[in-house]
Each structure stands twice: as C-alpha cells, then as structure tokens.
C-alpha cells in the first residue's frame, strides 16, 4: 500500500465527504471526519518520511505515463505543506464539534462537515498534483467549499463577504486558467515536469511572458497579496470561527505553495527572476503590505479583524523571503509557512473558544477575560508574542532566517524596515493584552467560565508546538532547508 500513499492522501477525505452525507447524524459525522483527518495526517507523515529518505515520489494515475495521464509528484516541498494542512485540520476538527454548536444552525451541521472535508480535499489535491490543469480543478473544489463555509457565518455580513470572495476568487482562478492555456498552447503539455523542460525553448516569446503574468496575478488574488487583499479581512472575520482557524492557517499557504511551485519548478528560476523584475515588484508589494495591513490592524475593534489584517502582513514577510530568490530566503518563507500556521491556528482557535463563551469577539468584551478565561487568554498572548517574533517562540525563528537572508544580500534597509514593522505587531497585540488583563469587565456582561476541554486541548497542543519548535528547530529547519535546496538544485 505504501506505493499508493500519494493518491490515498487525497482520496481518503474525498471519499469520506459523500459518506458523511449518507451518515447524516451530526455527532457521528464529526467523529468520522476526525478519524479521516487523523488518517490523512498519518499518510502525510509517512509521505514526508518516504520523501526525506528516498527522494521524489511519482505516481501515475490510471497507469498512464506522465505527459499523457495525470501525475502526482511528491517532493520535499509539497510533503511539508501536506503535513501542515493535515495536522492543522485534525486539531481544528477536534474543537469543531462544540464551536459549530453555537454558531451554525442545527440542520446544517452535517453539511458543514461535508464541506470541510471537501475543502480539505481540494487543498491536498492542489498540493499533491503534478499536473497544471488538475491544479485548477482542485483549486475550484477548495474555493467553492470555502465560499459556502464562509457564508455559513451567523452575521449577515458573512454572506456579502463570501460573495465578494467568490467574485475575486473566480476571477483569480480564471486568470490561472488563461495562464495555463497559454502555456499549453506554446508547449503542448500540461504536466509540470514536462512543462519545465519544454518552456525554456519558447521562453523568449511574448506569449510565455503573458502566461507567467496571468498565473502570477491569479495566484496573488488567491493569496491576498497587497493590493489584492480586499476580500480577506471580512471573509475571515465573519466566517464561523472554526472555518477561520482552518483557513487562516492553510488556505493562503496553499496559494503561496503554488506560487513557489510555478515560479521555481515550472517556469524556472532564471526565467522568473532574471527575465522579469519579479524581485523588485514582490519585495515592494510585500513591504507595503506589511505596513499597511499592520497599521490597519491597530485600529480594528473586532479582534478577528485584527488578526485577519495581521495575516495579510505576515503574507508580506513570506513574499519578501520568496522574492530574494536565495536558498536562505526561501527557507525563511517555508519556515514561516509552518510557523505562521501554528500561531494563527492557535490564536483563531482561542478566539473560537471566546466566541463560544462570550458570543462575540469585540474588544470591549475582552475586559477581564484575563482572569475569567486564563488559559485561553494565555494562548492568545503566546500566539501574539510569536507573531511579534519574541525569542523562544517560532516567530523568532522565521524572522531570524528572514533577516539573515536579507543581510546576506546586503538589503539592510529592508531588514531595518522589517524590524520596525514588528513594533506595529507589538502595538496591536498589546491593545488586546491591556484590555484583557488590566481592565475590569463590563458591568453588563455576565461573567464567563474558562473554555471547555474540547477547546483547550487543541489550543494548548498548538501553543506548546509554538514554543517547542521555537526552541528545538531541528525538524522544521531541516525540512524547510532541504526543500529549498532541492528547488534550487532543480532549476540551476
């Protein structure tokens, strides 16, 4: 069975989704999806192990040879991303049962799990595949289920946010489709590996340049790079809390993965970074994004909004690392993929717990929560420290690598600006801490109890991971570094 691991990774949650619809009973479905997610997680662990020891795995679907059939191609990079997605989905699903009880009407619970599994399938499919058109198909599975999940939010603004996301997302996907079409027209193939071999021949044509532009812009829409980020804050803020926790940790990561895949593996390093001034454009956009989003975060009163804007600024950090086109830079991006998933899922799960107890996440209602929900608030504080980049947390590790990468190439002004931006993070995290610990609770809010265990367990697993991987960086750094090296090895 080990030979079939790549396809099992995707097919397990995929087949589970319709089975959930048949099972019907919400509790049962929850248990079932949790088991499925654990299974997917173990598959991804095995995959990563296999890739680290024996190199790239290629799996031919239908037994058809690669450029004619569809190929699944697992290397270190996507094995790493698969692991991130499945681990987060498992932890988030644990808390889902209690959280959606409060936030989603009863008759929609089963549908929620079906959609959740479908969006998990979509993301895994995007990451595992080695075929450009297959990416588009699974992108649509994950996006369609995302639109529906977001629209399940209680507030009516969730509907509007979801509609906007649908429009932007579909434009993005169609752009990608145009880009893939142009590439196909010039090379006659859809397989990524095959594309990377055949593209250099035609790299000088205007058509390939335009194909690159369309794929990149489409992906930037999906990953909410400034200035294409407008759909993200509301979508995150008004979606059911569990959905936010899952998407904040995974959805934009998948888009970043695709960006790396297309620029490094498909178009090739020399084309992406020498023919096109990608470096300058991305570095500038990344920096502006960090500053604009962080300073907007400071003025938000809905805490979910605060951290949604903070996500946009964190994407900026990843893009800067990516734009350096050096091994260290890419390592920092990959590390930050992993680390940011850990911090954001911890924070948003804690917010889900607060949503569960308090009913909303307006800043005013945080008064006194430091004493009433000490464990939950402590998790937010650790997550916040990690966002700032305080030593002994994962945030520090990825920032350290980013700064090293910047200084390596002599970009010290940018490095200084990145450090300066961390101060903005201090401000928006401090606002929450101040209110939660140093203000008396509002008189008209009934005192609340600590969150139930079903929340605390996954939250604290994540918090401990935040600290653990901040101290013992062997695993994450080793995987990220060797993935980055292999990407450069391929293209050089």
């Amino acid at each position, binding site marked *: 069975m080990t030979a*079939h691991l790549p*396809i099992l990774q995707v*097919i397990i949650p*995929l*087949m589970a*989704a*319709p*089975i959930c*619809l*048949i099972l019907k009973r919400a509790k049962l479905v929850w248990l079932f999806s949790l088991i499925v997610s654990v299974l997917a997680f173990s598959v991804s662990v095995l995959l990563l192990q296999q890739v680290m020891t024996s190199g790239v795995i290629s*799996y*031919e*679907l*239908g*037994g*058809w040879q690669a*450029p*004619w*059939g*569809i190929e699944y191609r697992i290397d270190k990079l996507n094995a790493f991303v698969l692991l991130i997605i499945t681990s987060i989905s498992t932890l988030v699903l644990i808390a889902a049962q209690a959280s959606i009880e409060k936030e989603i009407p009863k*008759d*929609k619970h089963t*549908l*929620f799990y*079906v*959609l959740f599994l*479908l969006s998990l*399938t979509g993301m895994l*499919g995007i990451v595992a595949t080695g075929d450009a*058109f*297959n990416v588009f*198909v*699974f992108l*649509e*599975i994950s996006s*369609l*289920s995302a*639109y*529906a999940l977001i*629209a*399940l939010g209680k507030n009516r603004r969730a509907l509007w946010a979801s509609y906007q996301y649908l429009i932007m997302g579909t434009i993005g996907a169609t752009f990608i489709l*145009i880009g893939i079409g*142009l590439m*196909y*027209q*010039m*090379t*006659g*193939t*859809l397989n990524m590996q095959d594309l990377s071999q*055949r593209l250099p021949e*035609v790299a000088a*044509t*205007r*058509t390939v*340049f*335009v*194909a690159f*532009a*369309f794929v990149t812009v489409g992906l930037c829409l999906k990953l909410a790079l400034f200035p294409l980020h407008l759909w993200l804050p509301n979508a995150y803020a008004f979606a059911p809390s569990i959905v936010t926790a899952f998407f904040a940790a995974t959805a934009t990561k998948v888009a970043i993965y695709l960006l790396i895949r297309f620029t490094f593996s498909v178009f090739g390093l020399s084309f992406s970074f020498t023919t096109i001034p990608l470096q300058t454009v991305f570095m500038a956009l990344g920096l502006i994004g960090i500053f604009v989003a962080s300073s907007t975060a400071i003025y938000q009163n809905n805490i979910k909004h605060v951290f949604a804007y903070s996500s946009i600024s964190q994407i900026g950090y990843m893009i800067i690392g990516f734009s350096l086109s050096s091994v260290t830079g890419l390592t920092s991006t990959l590390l930050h993929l992993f680390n940011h998933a850990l911090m954001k899922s911890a924070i948003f799960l804690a917010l889900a717990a607060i949503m569960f107890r308090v009913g909303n996440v307006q800043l005013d209602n945080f008064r006194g929560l430091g004493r009433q929900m000490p464990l939950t608030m402590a998790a937010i504080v650790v997550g916040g420290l990690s966002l700032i980049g305080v030593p002994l947390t994962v945030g520090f590790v990825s920032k350290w690598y980013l700064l090293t990468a910047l200084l390596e190439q002599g970009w010290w002004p940018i490095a200084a600006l990145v450090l300066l931006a961390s101060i903005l993070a201090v401000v928006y995290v401090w606002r929450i801490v101040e209110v939660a610990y140093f203000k008396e609770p509002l008189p008209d809010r009934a005192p609340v109890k600590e969150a139930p265990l079903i929340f605390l367990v996954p939250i604290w697993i994540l918090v401990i991971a935040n600290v653990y991987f901040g101290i013992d960086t062997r695993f994450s750094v080793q995987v990220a570094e060797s993935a980055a090296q292999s990407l450069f090895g391929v293209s050089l």
Partner: protein
Amino acid sequence: MKDLFAVIMLSGIYGLLSASFFVAMDAVDVAFTEAAVGAGISTLLMLVVITMTGRKEKPTRHKPISALFVVIITGGLLIYGTLDMPYFGAADAPIHNHTSPRYINDSMQEIGIPNIVTSVLASYRAFDTFGEVVVIFTAGIGVLAMLSVARRKEDEDDEIASINDSMHQQHLVIRIVAKMLIPFILLFALYVQFHGDFGPGGGFQAGVIFAAAIILYAMLFGLATARRVINQTFIQLIAAIGVLLYGCVGLVSLMNGGNFFDYNVLSSDPIAGQHLGILIIEWGVGCTVASVMVIIFFNFAGRRQFQSLKKQTKHTESSK
C-alpha cells in the same frame, strides 16, 4: 441595459451562439454541454433568481474609470501575448505535436472506443473528471447549505399543493404536451448516457437532460408534487452514491494491483476492463450531475415558496 430579464435572455443566446461556434470548431461534445448549461440550466437558474430579487438594475452614479483601466491593461497584455502565438488552425502548432498524437493514433488500441474525447476524459485524464464530479457535488452541497429550509409540516405542504393546483389549471395544453414529452426526454437522456462512447454525449450531458425532464415536471405540476415523486433525502443519497461509484472504480483497481483509475486491471482483458471502467464512471457522473441539478433547482424554487409563504403570513398578521 437595466432590465435583467433581457440581460439574462441575451446571455442565454450568447451561450447558444458559443455552442454553435464550438460545433464549427469541431468540439461537438463541448457544444452539447455548453448548449445544455449556458443556454439551459444557467439561464433557468438566473430567471428563478430574478423572480426573487427583482428585475430592475439601479443605475450607478460613479463613473467606473478604474474598471476601464484594469480591463484595458489586461486586454492589452493579452493582445500583446497573442502576437507570438501559433496561427489559428496551423497544424504545426506545438499542441498538435506533443501529447495529442498519441491520443489520436493509439487510443483505439489502448481503450477501444471511437470517441477520443471520451477516451481522454474517462481514462487518460479520469482524475480530472473525478475532480469535476466533486466540484459539482460541492456546488450542490453549497446550495443546500445556503438555501435549504427546514421541512414544514404536512398540512402546509398540502396547502401549497392546492395553491399550485389552482394556479396551474390554466396551463392544461402545456401540461398534456409535457406529460407526453417527459418520457421521451428521459429516454433521450439514457441514449446520450450510453452513446457517449461512440458519438458526442456521456454522463454529464445525460445527467443534465435527465434533470431537465424532472425540472420541467416540477415547473408544470408544482414543486410539492414533484417533491412527492422525488424525495429530497433520496436525491441527496443519489448524489453521494454517484461520487462514491466513481471513486470505487479507482479503489477496485487499487485492490487489483493497478494504480488508481487503472482500468486495465478491472478485467482479464485490458480493453474490456477499459470499457467496464468507462461505463461505470459515466454512470457515476450521470447520477451525481442529474441529482445535483435537481437539488439546486428544488432548493432555489423551494426558497422562493418559503419567501412568499413568509410574506403571506406577515400580511395576514398585519391585517389582523
């Protein structure tokens, strides 16, 4: 144009025109699908929606210069990109010389059915098609999550039925004609389902046609009657089973020692295995597509009824 009804009609015509353009471009399968979807289903859905949302568009005051700017930039970029493209119809273009010759020359030996599009769709790139089925399944679940209304009590159901009956009494001629037509439509759907190997057609088109027959029935005889014929839970079950059926073909080939979707191992003779695999997955596609289309339509129409019912109760309350 501010009248949405006219806009939708025009977009339906656009769908039909592009379908005929696809015929001219030799893409008969695509034309079939586009005619069913672009001119049929999506027009129908949009019409149902504007009966709920109103058919007039409000004029906007601001001048959309920025939109024009974005559009011109993208368009200019695309035109720039076309300059190096192979010319239209050129046989020496790269796409005709790399992967496609194998599909055209060898598919008869490898798969054994004359319609190359079906061979590629159902065997070479079966996983894409599986993804497509999952996309449509996702859409069905999404619409269900958005619009489904908790089932009302039986008596209310009867009330709706009676309203519908009186309303539809006038369409006697249409109802009789439709009653005669529906069996033929269903039969045609089955023909398309089985004929996909030899000519244009296949599971998706058959599913849409099958759903069209049921939708026609629902429109003429009232939603409640149609619901009594086709139960909601049952149709959801069919949608799920379609996806599972498709996936199980893959799982069985895994069990038999092949790769996922490797039909050669389904039977002792590879060609027979391919035939069997394609037949079953086409059924999976047909089931899911037909039932999802019905789910989507029923939920839109059901929502509409729910809204008007709510309005009525509001009226009676206020008049009291």
